[in-house]
């Protein structure tokens, strides 16, 4: 019983991380059909923003020393600004090009951000101590669960609730959903394209910042490549969930998190190092059964 609870919490917290990432990618994909490969580097950028302005090897955390009620909004702001800037400077010019070109452009942007960070901070991981008290375990129904896992799950649920309310109950949310459904039609009915796209980028950037915060608290280090893995899985999750479907992306994020944890727990010991191979294999199998994704919106069906 205790082990099962442990596994459930592991799965939920890993899944939360993937779900937040998938959400960030799905929002942008919905409004402009861009698979944003720079998302992982946005995450890394936000983590390193906590070290500003110090670039020393023994990171003197500057922004990281702020109390949490200042630090969190500051980081969210940084994420949003970076994301909006990238839209204005780069992606705006790619709106009518084919998806492959856009994908490569976003990858190139990520490449630039990553090497900018490398140049400033070098490739050695830096230690960041954020809220060490979150690492302590709490006792829940007899199982010892790290506090951070509980917090991660709660944060994700809060973010998801707020986002659902925003999308369902506000004017901007309605515009964004309309744009995700059929962008041309939405524009013709008076949705302002630039506004909706900027908003999607801002939210996506804030999601990247929150992933950065969770990762940094969890690992205690700032590492250039820390966003890349989450971004990859998130990207796969958006496809499994059915491209353009926001709830689908979240559900698939949780699903992949759960699959990783379950494979980790149930595979025989020798095969455990091949866990990722099993996860990716499972992804291929899911795609073979449902090529349009698990929760594909009706509009995604190809018409002839």
């Amino acid at each position, binding site marked *: 019983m205790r082990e099962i609870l442990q596994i459930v919490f592991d799965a939920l917290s890993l899944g939360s991380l993937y779900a937040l990432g998938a959400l960030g990618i799905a929002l942008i994909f919905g409004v402009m059909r861009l698979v944003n*490969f720079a998302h992982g580097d946005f995450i890394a950028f936000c983590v390193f923003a906590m070290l500003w302005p110090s670039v020393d090897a023994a990171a003197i955390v500057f922004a990281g020393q702020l109390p949490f009620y200042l630090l969190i909004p500051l980081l969210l702001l940084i994420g949003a600004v970076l994301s909006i800037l990238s839209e204005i400077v780069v992606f705006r010019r790619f709106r009518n*090009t084919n998806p*492959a070109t856009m994908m490569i452009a976003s990858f*190139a942007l990520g490449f*630039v951000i990553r*090497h900018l960070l490398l140049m400033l901070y070098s490739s050695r991981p830096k230690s960041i101590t954020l809220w060490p008290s979150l690492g302590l375990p709490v006792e829940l129904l007899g199982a010892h669960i790290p506090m951070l896992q509980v917090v991660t799950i709660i944060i994700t649920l809060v973010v998801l609730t707020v986002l659902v309310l925003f999308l369902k109950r506000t004017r901007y949310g309605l515009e964004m959903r309309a744009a995700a459904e059929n962008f041309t039609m939405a524009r013709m009915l008076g949705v302002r394209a630039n506004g909706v796209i900027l908003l999607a980028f801002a939210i996506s950037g804030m999601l990247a910042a929150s992933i950065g915060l969770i990762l940094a608290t969890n690992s205690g280090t700032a590492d250039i490549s820390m966003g890349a893995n989450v971004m990859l899985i998130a*990207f796969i999750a958006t*496809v499994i969930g059915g491209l353009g479907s926001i709830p689908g992306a979240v559900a698939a994020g949780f699903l992949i998190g759960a699959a990783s944890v379950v494979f980790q727990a149930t595979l025989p010991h020798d095969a455990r190092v091949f866990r990722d191979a099993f996860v990716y294999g499972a*992804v291929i199998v899911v795609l073979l059964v449902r*090529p349009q994704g698990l929760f594909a919106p009706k509009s995604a069906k190809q018409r002839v």
Partner: protein
Amino acid sequence: MSTRPSVIRQTIVTPIILIVALLIMAALAYQFGSRAFNRTAVEMFINIMVVVGLYVFVGNSGLLSFGHISFMCLGAYMTAWLAIPPVMKSITLKGLPAWLLHTQLPMWVATPISGVFAALFALIIGRVIMRLSGIAASIATFGLLGVVNNVYSNWDSVTGGQGSIVGIPPTMNVWIGWLGAAISIAIAYLYSISRSGLALRATRDEAVAASASGIDIVRERLIAFVVSAFIIGLAGALYAHFLSIVNPGAFYLRTTFVTLSMLVVGGMSSLSGAVSGVVVMSLLIELFRNLEKGVSLGGHTVALPNGVQEIAIGIITIIILMYLPTGLTRNQEFSWRGWPLQRRLARTVQTALKELN
């Protein structure tokens, strides 16, 4: 009934121009280049093989693939298994079967075997993946890359795990690099004028009409997948002989994206685009590498800080794509008529890419 010769006569000039241009580059590098420059040239030729291989699948089918670097991985490791002296193998790679442990093949035998191995693997996995379409196929190839990388990074007794395997005879030079590039260009050209190549391009431009005309999309895509895997397997084998060490990290995301960028920058639906993309990007990388080392200007040595190279390459890629979204060659081929770029009959409608939308 003599339509085939005329197709060849119309288009044969493209691969000839490309191969001769590369031969001139190889000769210049051999004659005037330093040792380091020669290594850059070899690296460029290997990249040309990879990107031309990618073009065979991506350019003709219109589907993006993230998985082709796994074929490079398969080819390189196969070469490592075949070409490392048995004495070294028995220490580092204990898990190999006995017959493989006791063989050592020269480069010109090991390389084609590596290519065929990659192609066979592609034939098996492709039968599954090619049933998908659009972005689902792209993600499935991503899965393929993940599986291959994970297995090769962790199967310690056979692949040496995360570490590097050393001891592959370093027998590469510019001429072999050029030969490899020329062979891949020839294969890619022959494929693209073959019946299957024409059929596949028809499915790229108008999938519904093509399948209504009796083209089996899955079959044609599978053929292109296998041909491209063969070329990239060869490239992997030569890469192993070039560096004389292999490790799984070299065949993962970075290489995938760098080669895809080269293809898109050059123009992803033309053979000339594939080759010129690699040449232009390689020259840029070499230029910035030298600028980082320092240039003397009036007695002072001016050097760019380390890391500027990658940033500049990224920015230049973005700018090229901004102004030429169909790549440097605008998806056209080099030819004599209308030098330097031949006009295609009509603009291609990229239907397979529309599936992404």
